[in-house]
């Protein structure tokens, strides 16, 4: 189905957060820390206050009032401590954006700097074991005896992979426009992946009852997780508007987005696998080392994929964190699964070579009956089907497994495969469906961050009502609408759609209105392992002259329950896979060890794939029937497309060259390294 808001978007009529008109609006511009650790000694605002149009300067010299239990990344200007380079230490409010920016440059900040530490390593003395990893999984698990399993194995691999800092880089920058009314109620137009969650976070930060806050996010230009939690710009707009008693608008620059809107933690992952003579796993161990900030614990669930993927009697997974002088990592498309599957699926490829087995066959042979860690039955699991279908479509049976032997001129050609997985969850949600002017209005505080959620919900509602989609109008992106969970974790459509179906069913019974709240329904969900699966196949060409890697073919085959809409689904899968190609070959934010903070904070330096890189990217799916999910029978598809892509490409690079690069991204420098 075409996007219901497609016309307003391509004609420029869709209004994004920073674009709402506001009378008498003022602009806020942040001042950012230029040290990585230490204390603000003094902030001199005298010169800034004298500049044209300046209304106020907010800083720790006169901290604005926020709740004591506010998230430390959102409790702006409350403390003198600097936790990372780029942290907001002050902000100027002025009549124009230009005046605010000019005055921000005139704010003098004196620091007492301390020595900083921004480098993650697997032997860092500060490594510790967090209590849980996101979003609430056990930090470590152990089943059987890994050492014994490795000792009895016919083949073992013991390999370490590294992934760099990655930034989400949605097209639309983080922005907010805040209004306070005479009764002290706050309205924020925010770039949020969930209006309900943003309202709760802003209310909590400011110490307001949630019903005093309204958040509107009708159109959001991408998020990939970077807008999944409330970001400082929304709080800053609200604090500044309260201070100057005018509406205040803020839009972050791309540089500021790199600094304060989260990123994927770098990881160091050690994977040990043992297999018997038939290729059946005797042991699997996956240990992930990652970073968080000194402000907050963010524990990416990188090693949980081993708890889901393959049958083995001896299984150990573990996570270790270190608190560094960095901004807090956050959600980025398929947090946990994406970096974790890069390591696990690369290691499986190494095992296939070591054992002399076909990598598709190795995965098929180790497909488990039940979830390997907990023993729960799967609601549905079609990894084997995806691998077989992908192998058939890709021409895998013609593949010679020998690495480094296919040449087209200077180009070495290789193919690789990797599995994908992502949990299929849903969260409680409310929705209302009513008859309006003979058509149907469906309301839910869902978010469409460019995924097509509005369109998918239109189709779901039309199906539940038994009417054509053009008779359904879906209203979303407003916290005044029935409460809904975030567009994240690939659970948006499953959660919102469940409530929409129930509301529409109620409307059909009632004839006028249907209201739904799925809290109780979800409590009754059976205890099952619910996951989508997929298989990714890549063909690469690697220049033996330059080390350049070009992906000539990428195929993803997914089993993700019932696909709500083929057109929307295809673009979600392709988008994920293309982002995975970026992770494999080019994306990386260098950390500045000397000064702290990040380098390459713009899109000229942080490269994401361009059209010329995505030459032949194809996504297909198996129609999967699963009654144990939700009324649509669907599994989320926003994230699984990126899972496994980097491993498939890395495996193909090995097949092409005979050289295994274990640190992403796989750049010409790393390809050329062994030829020095």
């Amino acid at each position: 189905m075409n996007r219901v808001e497609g016309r307003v978007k391509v004609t420029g009529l869709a209004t994004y957060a920073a674009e709402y008109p506001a009378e008498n609006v003022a602009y806020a511009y942040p001042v950012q820390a230029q040290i990585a650790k230490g204390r603000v000694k003094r902030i001199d605002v005298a010169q800034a206050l004298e500049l044209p149009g300046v209304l106020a300067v907010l800083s720790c010299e006169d901290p604005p009032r926020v709740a004591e239990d506010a998230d430390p990344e959102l409790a702006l200007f409350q403390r003198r401590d600097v936790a990372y380079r780029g942290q907001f230490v002050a902000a100027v409010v002025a009549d124009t954006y230009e005046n605010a920016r000019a005055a921000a440059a005139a704010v003098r900040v004196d620091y007492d700097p301390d020595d900083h530490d921004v480098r993650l390593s697997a032997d860092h003395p500060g490594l510790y074991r967090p209590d849980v990893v996101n979003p609430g999984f056990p930090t470590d698990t152990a089943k059987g005896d890994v050492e014994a399993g490795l000792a009895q194995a016919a083949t073992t691999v013991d390999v370490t992979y590294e992934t760099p800092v990655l930034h989400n880089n949605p097209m639309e920058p983080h922005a907010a426009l805040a209004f306070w009314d005479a009764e002290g109620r706050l309205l924020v137009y925010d770039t949020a992946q969930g209006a309900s969650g943003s309202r709760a976070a802003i209310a909590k930060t400011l110490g307001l009852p949630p019903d005093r806050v309204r958040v509107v996010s009708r159109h959001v230009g991408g998020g990939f997780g970077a807008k999944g939690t409330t970001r400082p710009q929304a709080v800053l707009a609200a604090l500044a508007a309260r201070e100057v008693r005018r509406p205040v608008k803020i839009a972050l620059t791309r540089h500021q987005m790199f600094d304060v809107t989260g990123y994927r933690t770098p990881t160091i992952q050690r994977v040990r696998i043992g297999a018997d003579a038939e290729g059946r796993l005797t042991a699997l161990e996956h240990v992930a080392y990652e970073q968080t900030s000194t402000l907050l614990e963010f524990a990416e669930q990188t090693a949980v994929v081993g708890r889901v993927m393959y049958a083995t009697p001896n299984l150990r997974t573990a996570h270790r964190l270190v608190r560094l002088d960095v901004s807090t990592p956050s959600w980025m498309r398929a947090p946990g699964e994406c970096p974790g599957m890069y390591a696990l699926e690369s290691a499986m490829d190494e095992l296939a070579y070591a054992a002399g087995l076909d990598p598709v066959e190795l995965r098929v042979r180790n497909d488990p009956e039940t979830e390997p860690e907990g023993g729960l039955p799967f609601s549905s699991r079609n990894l084997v089907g995806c691998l077989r279908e992908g192998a058939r479509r890709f021409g895998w049976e013609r593949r010679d497994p020998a690495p480094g032997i296919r040449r087209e001129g200077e180009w070495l050609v290789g193919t690789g495969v990797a599995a994908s997985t992502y949990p299929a969850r849903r969260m409680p949600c409310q929705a209302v469906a009513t008859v309006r002017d003979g058509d149907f209005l469906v309301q839910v505080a869902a978010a469409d961050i460019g995924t097509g959620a509005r369109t998918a919900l239109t189709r779901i509602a039309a199906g539940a009502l038994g009417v054509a989609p053009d008779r359904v109008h879906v209203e979303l992106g407003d916290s005044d609408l029935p409460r809904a969970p975030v567009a994240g974790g690939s659970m948006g459509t499953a959660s919102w759609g469940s409530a929409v179906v129930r509301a529409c069913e109620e409307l059909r019974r009632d004839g006028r209105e249907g209201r739904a709240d799925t809290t109780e329904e979800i409590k009754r969900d059976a205890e099952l392992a619910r996951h989508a699966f997929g298989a990714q196949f890549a063909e690469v060409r690697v220049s033996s002259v330059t080390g350049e890697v070009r992906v000539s073919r990428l195929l993803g085959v997914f089993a993700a329950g019932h696909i709500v809409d083929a057109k929307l689904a295809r673009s979600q899968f392709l988008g994920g896979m293309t982002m995975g190609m970026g992770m494999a070959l080019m994306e990386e934010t260098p950390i500045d060890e000397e000064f702290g903070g990040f380098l390459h904070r713009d899109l000229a330096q942080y490269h994401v794939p361009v059209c010329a890189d995505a030459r032949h990217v194809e996504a297909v799916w198996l129609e999967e029937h699963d009654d144990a999910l939700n009324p649509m029978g669907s599994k989320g598809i926003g994230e699984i497309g990126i899972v496994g892509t980097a491993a498939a490409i890395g495996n193909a690079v090995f097949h092409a060259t005979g050289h295994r690069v274990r640190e992403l991204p796989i750049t010409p420098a790393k390809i050329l390294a062994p030829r020095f």
Partner: protein
Amino acid sequence: MKPFEYARATGPAEAVRDYTPGTMYLGGGTNLVDLMKLGVAEPDRLLDVSRLPLDGIEEARDRVRVGATVRNTDLAAHPLIRARYPMLARAVLTGASGQVRNVATVAGNLLQRTRCTYFQDVTRPCNKRRPGSGCPAIAGDHANLAILGASDACVATHPSDLAVALAALDAEVHVTGPGGDRIVPMPGLHRLPGHEPERDTVLAPGDLITGVELPPPPPGASLYRKVRERASFAFALVSIAAVLDVAADGTVADCRIALGGVAHVPWRAERAERALIGGPATGEAFLQAAEAELEQAAPLPRNAYKVPLARNLIVATLEELAP
């Protein structure tokens, strides 16, 4: 961003006469305006020279004169350029994106600044931006920076593709300025950083590039090749502009090699050229020539890959050009 005045020049001579310290000439603005937004460039006044009547591409006897304000897109598409200097057209088309090339001018392309991450960040030191403040790239992020001709003060690279092709073609840059008109032969427009990395070129304050003159195309086959991890819209890790003319007896009659992405200037590989001319056009000779050139390389830990990359690129390109 510092407030600035904007004025439009009426002619090249008027522009030079109108020049005052603090003035910067504005071409397409694809680099200068970015640098102004970043606070790296802080002119008091922009003198827009982009609409001067210097937008022609004309034949003058056996030479071709390209005006300073010709847009990169128009340069690459021009029949004279495509027919006589296909390597130049190819170099231009590997640069930036279609949208940027539509705006960017010939002179602006040559005078664009390095994309070194420290140079572009006013909160960090950089000798090129703030002389004497230090060069953190040497111990830090230099993966894309220079392996040839760098100094203790600066390891920046010049990012232009056009300049590399012009260096190989022995193009002449026509300059007018307070001191009168003069011709600067390529690759002599750009200079090595030495102790004055803030000076990218030999131009004096107020100098204005009015055009580029291309001598007759050298005999032989030519090629421009650019290496980058992303397939498009990325600066070169290393690039090469090469011309090779092989005589009937199999010896190299003439050879031009210029490298991009390796130095503060488009790097004319003169040692390699000298090693090749008069000798056999064989893979072995190409390799020895490349190694003779790269003996001067002084790579840093994270850009050492550029040495084998440049070597491979020289050899592969010459092998492709050899009959």
